[in-house]
C-alpha cells in the first residue's frame, strides 16, 4: 500500500529555505515591535545589593527597564516538572548563577536596547561560588527519579557477577560542559491583543510553551497562541520553556507593545541549558569467552541550585547488552551554575563510557571489539523482560564491518602508520531511545479542489517533519504528495508533543496517518452512498484509493475522485484524529571510524566514518541519511573540540562564543558513509518506524576515542581529546 513513504522525497520546505522565504521566529513581521535585551549577572552566587536603572531609563528610545523590583510576579507550577524550569529570575534579589538575567531593557530599536543595557548599574553582595564538579564530588547525592529514569537501578546479583568475572576493567571517565549552539539563538516575539497573547517562538514544544506561558502570566491557555513554523535548530536547547520567554511576554504586557527578544550568542550560554559535566565510574567484567557477567556504572552529574533533574541517563548500560547482573546509579552535585538540560543525544554521555570500557575490555581479553559486542547482543529488553520490537544490532555490526573493511585492521596499537601519522580504527555501538510521548493528533481538511490540508501542532527542528508528514499524509489519503499541504508549529492545530527525545516521528506519524486514513474512509463512504457516484452501492471495503482516484479494487477504469466527491458534498470534509498513545522503542546501530593522529603535534584528524543503523522502517532515506551524517559530525565536535570552559573561581563561562567554543567546520569533516537496515518494527504504530534522530549522534564519540587509542596506544579518559592530552 505504501507508495511514497520510504522514498527519498526532496524536502517540501526546500524552496522556502534556499530563497530566504522561510520565516523563523525573529523574521515574523509585527508592526511596532519593540526590542528587548537582557542584562546578565556577572557574579554566580549572592544577592543584588543595589540596582540603578536611571541612566538606562533616560537613554534614547527606552520604554522600560524591568528589574526584580518592577517585573510583575510570574507564577511557576509547584515542584519540578519536566520541560519547564521552576526558577524564574527578576522575581527576587537572589543570584543562582552567572549570566542570570538581572534586568530586561525594552527600547524602540535593537541598538537602543543594547545601549541602555550597558547603562544598568548593578552591585552585588556576592559569595564565593562552587563551580567545578570534580572539586565537589564528596557532595554527590542521589536525587529523586527524574522523568521516566530511575536514579538507582539493580538487576541480578552484582556481587555474584563480579565473582564470575575472569577479566574486569574498572575505569573512571569524565565529560565536560557543552552547549547546544543551534545556529538560531532562542527568540521570543510576544504580541498582546487585549487579553490574547500571540508568541512567535523558537520552540521545540509549542504546546508546553503555551501552557507554561498561560500559567506564568495567569491567563487561560485558550488565550495564548504559540507559533513556530520554522526552527533554526534546537538540539534540546529549545525544548524546555526558559525564563526569557516568560519575561518577554510579561514585558510586552507591561509596555503595551509587542516585544522581540533574541538572545545574544553569549546569553545563550547561561539561558537555555547545557550538557552537564559528568564524572563516571564503570566496572565491567566478563568471562574469558567475552560474555559479560556484571556491570556497575555510577554517573555523577552537575545540577544547579534550583533544579535537580538529570539528563545523562545510563540507558545504554541497562539496555544495550545482555548484562545479567547490573547496577546503575545517577548522582547529582549542586553547583552555582545554570541548569543543565538534554542536549542532542543525552544518552551519548554515558554510552560513550560504556563503549570505551568495552574497548578496554576487548584489549584485556584479546577478543575483537566487534566480536565482543556480538557475543553480548540481546533480543530482550532486560529492564522490562520483553523482547525488543525488532532489533538488528548484529546485522548493523556485520554490514558496517564489511563496508569499513574492518577485517584489515591490525589490532595492535600504533601498528597502522602512514606518511601523515598514526592511523587508528575504532568501533562502537550507537543506541538511543526512539519512542514517543502520548498525545499526538492531527486534522485533515479535504477541499473541493481535491487537495488536502493536514495540520498538527508538531515542530520541524530541521529533521524533515514537513516532508515526512507530507509523505505519510499522501499514503494515508491515497493522493500524490503535491496534493497535500502539511502545516505545523501552531497551537491552534490539534496538539502534538515535544520534538525532543527522537520522538517526533513516533508521536506524530500515528495521528497524521490515522486522520488521513479516516478521511479516506469517510470519502469512500460518501461516494458509495451517493447515487451520482460511479461507485454508488459498492462495498466500501473493496474500494482502493490511489492518486486521488477511488475505484473498485482491480477495476481502475471506473472511478470517482476526491475532488468530485467533495464538490458534490458542497463543503470541505474535515476529520480529526484522536490523540495517540505512547510507544517505547530503542534504535541502535554500529559506527566505525578512522583517525590519523599527528605523532608530534597530537592533532586528531577524522578521516572517515561509517555508520549502519536500524531505525525500523526508514520513512525518507534522504532526510534520514542527512540526519545520520549530522549526528556523526556533531559527535566529532563532542569528542575532539567542544568544551565550555568555566572559571572555577568566578563560576563564569570563559568562552561564550563560537570562536572559543569550537564546533566542527566544513574543513574538519570527512565523508560519512551511511546505510540503513530498513526492516520494519512490527510493534511501532508509526508505520513500523521508530524514533531515530538521536541514535546516530551516539557511538561516534567512543568509536573516535577507541580509534585514537588504537592509533596511539594512549587511553584518554577525559573528553575532549585535545592535542595537549595526546602529546
Amino acid at each position: 500500500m505504501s507508495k511514497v513513504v520510504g522514498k527519498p522525497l526532496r524536502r517540501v520546505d526546500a524552496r522556502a529555505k534556499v530563497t530566504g522565504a522561510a520565516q523563523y521566529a525573529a523574521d515574523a513581521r509585527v508592526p511596532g515591535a519593540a526590542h528587548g535585551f537582557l542584562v546578565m549577572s556577572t557574579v554566580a552566587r549572592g544577592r543584588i545589593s543595589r540596582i540603578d536603572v536611571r541612566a538606562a531609563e533616560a537613554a534614547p528610545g527606552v520604554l522600560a527597564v524591568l528589574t526584580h523590583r518592577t517585573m510583575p510576579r510570574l507564577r511557576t507550577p509547584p515542584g519540578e516538572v519536566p520541560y519547564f524550569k521552576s526558577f524564574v529570575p527578576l522575581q527576587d534579589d537572589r543570584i543562582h548563577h552567572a549570566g542570570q538575567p538581572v534586568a530586561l531593557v525594552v527600547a524602540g530599536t535593537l541598538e537602543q536596547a543594547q545601549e541602555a543595557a550597558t547603562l544598568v548599574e548593578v552591585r552585588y553582595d556576592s559569595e564565593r561560588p562552587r563551580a567545578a564538579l570534580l572539586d565537589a564530588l564528596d557532595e554527590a547525592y542521589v536525587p529523586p527519579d527524574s522523568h521516566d529514569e530511575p536514579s538507582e537501578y539493580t538487576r541480578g546479583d552484582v556481587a555474584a557477577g563480579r565473582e564470575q568475572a575472569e577479566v574486569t576493567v574498572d575505569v573512571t571517565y569524565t565529560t565536560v560542559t557543552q552547549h547546544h549552539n543551534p545556529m538560531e539563538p532562542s527568540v521570543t516575539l510576544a504580541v498582546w491583543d487585549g487579553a490574547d497573547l500571540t508568541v512567535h517562538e523558537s520552540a521545540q514544544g509549542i504546546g508546553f510553551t503555551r501552557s507554561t506561558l498561560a500559567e506564568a502570566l495567569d491567563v487561560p491557555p485558550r488565550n495564548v497562541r504559540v507559533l513556530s513554523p520554522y526552527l533554526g535548530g534546537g538540539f534540546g536547547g529549545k525544548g524546555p520553556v526558559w525564563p526569557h520567554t516568560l519575561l518577554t511576554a510579561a514585558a510586552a504586557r507591561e509596555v503595551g507593545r509587542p516585544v522581540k527578544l533574541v538572545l545574544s550568542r553569549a546569553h545563550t550560554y547561561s539561558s537555555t541549558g547545557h550538557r552537564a559535566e559528568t564524572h563516571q565510574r564503570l566496572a565491567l567484567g566478563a568471562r574469558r569467552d567475552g560474555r559479560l557477567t556484571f556491570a556497575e556504572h555510577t554517573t555523577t552529574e552537575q545540577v544547579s541550585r534550583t533544579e535537580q533533574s538529570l539528563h545523562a541517563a545510563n540507558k545504554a548500560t541497562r539496555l544495550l547488552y545482555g548484562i545479567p547482573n547490573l547496577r546503575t546509579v545517577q548522582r547529582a552535585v549542586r553547583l552555582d551554575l545554570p541548569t543543565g538540560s538534554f542536549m542532542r543525544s543525552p544518552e551519548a554521555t554515558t554510552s560513550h563510557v560504556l563503549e570505551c570500557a568495552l574497548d578496554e575490555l576487548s584489549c584485556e581479553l584479546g577478543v575483537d571489539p566487534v566480536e565482543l559486542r556480538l557475543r553480548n547482543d540481546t533480543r530482550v529488553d532486560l529492564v522490562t523482560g520483553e523482547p525488543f520490537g525488532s532489533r538488528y544490532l548484529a546485522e548493523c555490526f556485520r554490514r558496517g564491518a564489511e563496508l569499513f573493511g574492518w577485517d584489515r585492521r591490525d589490532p595492535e596499537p600504533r601498528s597502522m602508520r602512514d606518511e601523515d601519522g598514526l592511523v587508528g580504527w575504532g568501533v562502537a555501538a550507537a543506541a538511543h531511545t526512539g519512542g514517543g510521548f502520548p498525545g499526538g493528533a492531527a486534522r485533515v481538511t479535504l477541499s473541493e479542489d481535491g487537495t488536502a490540508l493536514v495540520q498538527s501542532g508538531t515542530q520541524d527542528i530541521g529533521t524533515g517533519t514537513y516532508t515526512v508528514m507530507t509523505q505519510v499524509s499522501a499514503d494515508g489519503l491515497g493522493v500524490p504528495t503535491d496534493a497535500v499541504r502539511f502545516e505545523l508549529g501552531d497551537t491552534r492545530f490539534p496538539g502534538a508533543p515535544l520534538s525532543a527525545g527522537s520522538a517526533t516521528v513516533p508521536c506524530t506519524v500515528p495521528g497524521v496517518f490515522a486522520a488521513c486514513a479516516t478521511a479516506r474512509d469517510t470519502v469512500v463512504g460518501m461516494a458509495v452512498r451517493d447515487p451520482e457516484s460511479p461507485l454508488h452501492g459498492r462495498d466500501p471495503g473493496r474500494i482502493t484509493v490511489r492518486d486521488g482516484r477511488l475505484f473498485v479494487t482491480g477495476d481502475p477504469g471506473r472511478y470517482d475522485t476526491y475532488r468530485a466527491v467533495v464538490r458534490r458534498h458542497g463543503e470541505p470534509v474535515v476529520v480529526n484524529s484522536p490523540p495517540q498513545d505512547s510507544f517505547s522503542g530503542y534504535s541502535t546501530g554500529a559506527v566505525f571510524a578512522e583517525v590519523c593522529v599527528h605523532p608530534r603535534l597530537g592533532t586528531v584528524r577524522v578521516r572517515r566514518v561509517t555508520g549502519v543503523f536500524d531505525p525500523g522502517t526508514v520513512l525518507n532515506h534522504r532526510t534520514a541519511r542527512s540526519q545520520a551524517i549530522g549526528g556523526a559530525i556533531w559527535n566529532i565536535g563532542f569528542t575532539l573540540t567542544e568544551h565550555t570552559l568555566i572559571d572555577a573561581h568566578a563560576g563564569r563561562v570563559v568562552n561564550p562564543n563560537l570562536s572559543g567554543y569550537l564546533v566542527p567546520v566544513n574543513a574538519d569533516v570527512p565523508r560519512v558513509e551511511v546505510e540503513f537496515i530498513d526492516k520494519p518494527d512490527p510493534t511501532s504504530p508509526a508505520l513500523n518506524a521508530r524514533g531515530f534522530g538521536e541514535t546516530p549522534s551516539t557511538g561516534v564519540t567512543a568509536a573516535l576515542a577507541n580509534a585514537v587509542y588504537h592509533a596511539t596506544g594512549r587511553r584518554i579518559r577525559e573528553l575532549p581529546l585535545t592535542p595537549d592530552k595526546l602529546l
Partner: protein
Amino acid sequence: MSEPSQHAAEDSGPGRRSVLKAGGVSAAAVMMPLAPGGAAHAAPGPSAAPRAAADIALRVNGETHRVAVEARVTLLDALRERLRLTGTKKGCDRGECGACTVLVDGRRVKSCLTLAVMQEDREITTVEGVARGERLHPVQEAFVARDAFQCGFCTPGQIMSAVACVEEGHTGSRDEIREWMSGNLCRCGCYPNIVDAVRDAAREVRR
C-alpha cells in the same frame, strides 16, 4: 568578594568584532572589562550623546532603498530590521558563524561586521536576490537536490558563500571547497552535502 559592580557587557572579552566595529555600543561593551575597577561609574561617554540618523541609499538586489540609520547600525540589522529582508540571518553578531553572509560588489561579507552607512554606492546581494524570478540559481538547485541543509538557518549564508566560492573558482577539489566554505558554520552537520552541492553547482555554472 563584596560589592563588585558591572557595566553589563554582552561580550566577555575583546573579540574579532572589536577591531572592525569601532564606534557605537559594541566597542564600548568590549572595552569595559579592560577598564580599571569595573567601569560602573564611568562617564556615559558617547552613548549619552544624541545620535543623528543618516539618510542613506542602499542598493540591494538591484533595488535602491532609502533608509535613515544611525551610524552604529550594522548592515545586517539594516537589512533585517529596516528593509525587512529577513532572509539574511543573525547567528552570532560577531563574525564567527557566517549566517549573515551577503555579497557586496560580488565579494562575500559578513554583514554583522560592517556598518550600513559604509555600504552606500555598493551593490549588495542577499539570498532573496539570487534566484531569477521563479528560476532558482544553480547553487540553490544543488542545495535542494543534495539535501545540503536541515534546519535551514545557516543556509542563506551558505548559499551566498557558495555562489562566491563558485565565482572565485575555489572548487577544484573537495578539499578546496571544504576549505573555502569553512567560514560558514552548520550545526545540523550538512557539510558533506554542502560540498556535493557546491561541486554540482560549479559544474552547472561552467557548462
